[in-house]
């Protein structure tokens, strides 16, 4: 029953989220929905990252009494992915915000939220 371990559950959830996000980006014509798709995709990535950093039975990566300094690496959950996720979330937020800003401007210019209406440039 290895597969029902926490890290696998998160990993699979993350993967599903990524795929859902991609599906959303590719299949939805509405710009807002596409942004939501992207958001899902991004979140999925973050979840995957977390799952990677997880060490079973590990404790929080805080060097206190509970953690032996010498063997810290084996006992604590890898702190780096968490730090990375934080950064990634921030950046993801930035990107999402910018996307939404674009959506607003695009809607203002053309009065439409359908991506197929923005095909002025091609070939």
């Amino acid at each position, binding site marked *: 029953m290895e597969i029902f371990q926490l890290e696998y559950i998160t990993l699979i959830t993350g993967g599903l989220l990524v795929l859902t996000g991609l599906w959303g980006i590719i299949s939805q014509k509405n710009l807002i929905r596409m942004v939501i798709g992207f958001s899902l995709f991004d979140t999925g990535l973050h979840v*995957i990252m977390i799952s990677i950093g997880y060490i079973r039975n590990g404790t929080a990566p805080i060097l206190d009494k509970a953690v032996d300094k010498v063997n810290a690496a084996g006992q604590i959950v890898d702190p*780096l992915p968490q730090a990375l996720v934080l950064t990634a979330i921030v950046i993801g937020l*930035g990107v999402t915000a*910018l*996307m939404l800003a*674009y959506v607003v401007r*695009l809607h203002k210019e053309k009065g439409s939220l359908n991506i197929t209406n923005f095909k*002025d*440039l091609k*070939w």
Partner: protein
Amino acid sequence: MVTPIFIIATGLGLAFALGFIPKKHINLTGILSFLGLAFMTFISGQWLFSYLGNNELSQFIFTAGARPPFAIALKMGQAEAMITLLINVVGLLSAVFLYDKLKQIGRNAFIIYLVLIMALNVIVMTRDLFNLFVFLEITSIATAGLMLLDSNLKTLSAGFKYLLATSLIAGVFLIGTIFIYSFGGSLFIDDLTAIGMAPLKAVSVAVFLLMISIILELKPFPANGWGLDVYQTANPGISSVISGGTATAMLFALYKIMPLSTMQSYDILIWVGLITFLGSNLMGLKQSDARRLLGYSSIGQIGLMISIIGMKPYIQFDIQIILLAILITHLMAKAGFFWLTGIVGNTDISKWGMIRKHPEMLFLMGTFVFALIGFPPFPSFFGKWQLIMELSSSGHFLWIGLILLGSLIEAVYLFRWLGYAIKKETATQSSIDIRPHKTLPTIIFAVFLYGVGYLASFWFPMGGSINWLPLAFIAILFALDFLPAWIKNIISIAGLSYYAYQIIPEQEGLYLIFAFIFLIGGILTLIPGFTNKGKRIGFYPVAMMMFVGMGMLIEAQSMLEFFFGWELMTAGSYFLIIRGHRSMPHALSYMLFSLGGAYLIFAAFGIAFAGSGNFLMSGLSTMGGLGGIAYTLLAIGFMTKTASLGLHIWLPGAHAEAESDVSPMVSAILLKAGVLGLIITFMAMGGPNNEYTTLPYVLGWLGAITALVGNLAAAFQEDAKRLLAYSSIGQLGYILFALAMMTHLGWLTGIGYSLSHFAYKAILFMGIGAVVLRLKTHNMFEMGGMIKKMPFTFIAVLMGIITLAGIPPLIGFAGKWLFYNAIIEKGWYFQGTIIFFAGIIAFLYCFRILYAVFLGQLKDEHRNVKEAPIWYLIPQYLLLLSIMIFSAKPEWIFQPLGSMLAPIFPQGQLVWNEGGTAFSDIGYWNGSWVMYIIGIMFVMIFAWLFIQNRKPKKVKQFNIVYAGEKPERPETTHMAYNMYSGYNKALGFITANGITTFWNWISEHVTAMGDSLRKIYSGNGQTYVFHIILFVIIVYLFSNGGF
């Protein structure tokens, strides 16, 4: 030393700080931004300087004072310094270019711009994968942000697609990063490399994801529709940063992470890159929007560089140098080109004729085009040269083929564009925007390109032996272009004379002959230039470029120098040809055939390098096992210049439409460069008893058929200069045939023919050119009766024609006599018969041009036409004098020629007795006696007629017997149109335009292919996302050996 961390600090800090400056102090914001950018530039520059001075080891900078993985590591090595410098220079200059736009948008624009440049720097410097991800995202956010500032629907939609795609790509990168980390436990690239965990399957997937996402950032074909939209719609300043800066940074990132991956991934890079290079250029063929076109070109170039990164394992030479040479050229030329589109304003390439009003801008454009194609003296020339040589020596001929094919296709649209700019008439009166802050960056990059080109030559083997002095002379001529034409003509003639004085005494043997044709011929053909009033902008530098290029062919000790000279000559002659009236399409086809030929020569040189291991011209004779192919490539390459059948379609238009004094240059002289090349090829093949018997045999037939078709087509022309041009094709067919015989007599014929063709074709083109100059028409049926108006020209042309036709007693006959002997000796009877048939057909056009132009009926409009300008007559009569001398004393030319050839072909030499009679094995001929006998007899018969008929009544042109009627108009009495209609009925099918049709078919289909390929760019952002996903999957499947 300022630590590179200050680059980030400056960028970020300034970006924050600018936020506090009130909006009204926009100028202060601007100045501060420039200072920041300049400081960043200074930092990288200073690092580069310090590395160049002494070979220091690369410096690592660990932020937060800790080693990875607990902190981010930056690296500032020589390469990083170089790349960041380039990025910062582009950033700085683009900021200058964008200044009014940024100012108009406000301080936010400055902030985002600073962040963008800073982010690019970090992408280059960072050694941390996650950091790389972060700054990839920042780059795309900043870029999208910059685009967002421009509230134009097209820009917005492009920006959105861009943002969508890059975020997705960054996501892919992130997944890769995470997995790498999970397996490797580090994000520090150097540590990861040191672990050497590539063999792990799971890791290889992760590395693959990293690599593919960077590749995707570099916009590989076909997953790059979003990139093109950005290029097309962004402000040219931004586009130049994207094309120059972002792409450079991404390339470096790719280069950086490649050590992580397996050897197999290098092959992925190669194929992805080559397919991108080819596909992108193919799609550019049909593009008419300037910026999108540049986008295609940009993507293509980057694809090439991706593949070069992938070729690292196969190349002995330092790949960084090759890459750098190509990268610098691409960066500067492409950035400059994008700025230029901003200056011109009109994005329809067919409207670029408006740039002509500012020759200096046209000069910039030409510089960029030639730099992009890889012409000397630009760095990419050397880069491509070394690349091809290395690939060849490792035996990757398919890649060479693809690279050269892609370059050729790129040349098609770039030169078409250049042609539009130089020649195409435009209706629009709008002027271009040449404010200094726009033009200055462009000019700087153009100047840099030349400078770096000079420097780059020293990076590569043999590059240092290039003679830069003549190039400096050309540069001075460019600088002096404001002077009146006659001064420049004097300077040019003086310069060329000095060059000749330097070169010719050093030459011996056949090179002496060709040095004479190229340089003395050049001086002679420059003389007519004195007739030009005004400034003749741009003529002299390009003419000198052609002659200097030909001089370099003579001088060349190494293949690099030879190719350098060859390309220089091609470039110069292209500009000469395109100057002509209506010559835009002809110049294009000339350029394409020349380039195609040059690339074949290039490939052959590569084979020679692979065979001999050095760059010397002597290496051509040690080809290794691929000799047959290499010599074929060389021969075909040189035959594009000699315009042999199949490769000739550029010639008639190019020669006919050129200016009156350019036609002799490109016909009498330029074609001989091809002959020289053929001679070099044949000599390299190893003289008379070589192992490659098929090639000369095929070339012999080709030469014969070329002669036939060329002469026949010449007989059916209505355009006098076109007639001469086709005649050149025919005559060059003779020369090809003669050389292909590979016997003493054959070469004597061929080289003698080259000399006499030089003389008489120069006379003819100058004579007819002078007529065209006076009559302002090319059509022979509109001429007539010029003998009364231009008698001196007539005499010169008549003598030229007699020489051409090979009628005794003039020297042209020597060629015919030698031909008979050579053919019978060689045993090529049937080819020989075709040659003689062609020779007799030559009479048709000989008579036609003499009659239709000089005899027959003088037209109303031409009744007060004057004799040709004296400057046209002087060189003609000088050449005529030499023809006369050598006609009377043929041994003066053929005896030395024979002794020059004796070392190569000891068998079957001519024997000359004291009386000047030449004996071959089967025949004999005494030129002097023939001359005397005919001369004396002619005088006696003339005297006899004169005694009998002393005072004929001189009558006028309509005093002819006209069946009891009188002629009505000279036009209807001049029998010149469709003169050989009966002959055309009988044999005209031979000249049916099959070959032109063939090439048109090819070009149509290639263009159509590009056109249908580019239909995948539907404009829908979702499709582009889909492309990206599909691309990842397909490349993954391929890299793992299939499905």
